[in-house]
């Protein structure tokens, strides 16, 4: 087996190991196609919702801002 194949295999192995460790420890955060939807997503706020919200507070947090950044 040529050396470039061995080196590439080691690099791929290390990357897979790193991904598995991140996944198991939860350091990598939530991952997967459904991570931006469903329960974890903050409720979407339309312009109408902002106008008719109780107390009429329009100076609060922007929709979907805090959870993602």
């Amino acid at each position, binding site marked *: *087996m*040529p050396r*470039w*194949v061995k080196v*590439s295999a080691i690099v791929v192995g290390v990357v897979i190991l790193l991904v598995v460790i991140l996944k198991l420890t939860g350091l990598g955060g939530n991952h997967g*196609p*459904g*991570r*931006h*939807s469903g329960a974890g*997503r903050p409720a*979407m*706020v*339309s*312009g109408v*919702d*902002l106008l008719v919200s109780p107390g009429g507070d329009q100076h609060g947090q*922007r*929709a*979907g*801002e*805090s*959870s*993602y*950044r």
Partner: protein
Amino acid sequence: MTMPPRLRKVVLTAHVTTSVGWLGAILAYLAVDITAVTSQDTATVRGAYAAMEVIVVSAIIPLALASVLIGVVNALGTPWGLLRHYWVLAKLLLTVFAAVVLLIETQTVTDLAATAASSADPRGLPGTLPHSIGGLVLLLIAVILSVFKPQGATRYGWRKQNELRRDKRAQRSAPMA
């Protein structure tokens, strides 16, 4: 089973076109992805997410599937084969992996575009930069492999080469009719 030279060139042209097109479409997607994440203009961000979905669905997915499919046909129709050389095998694994991740990630991009379209302020939504940069790196590695064609035959490749040599020797030593 090798293709005749003219057909081989047609298939190779289609393979290079779709593969380089895939790379170019990812670069365009990356530009829009960065805009979606960094822009402070709400309309621009909303437009960027919509553009991301269009680029993925209309350009990246068709080009990726065509590139993998035509690449397999191209490899099988030439003496290189699909599993005989490490560089061809590595390219196959890289592009199939990239295509599978792309198909899984498409749902995320569609969700983000829908959320951005209906949200009052889509500026807080995340981008998909790790995936787009990762895809770009994989395809660049595939391009480098195609250009440099690093040496090394697989075990299967060696066996096939020996079989071919044996057949040629047998043909040469066979009595003429």
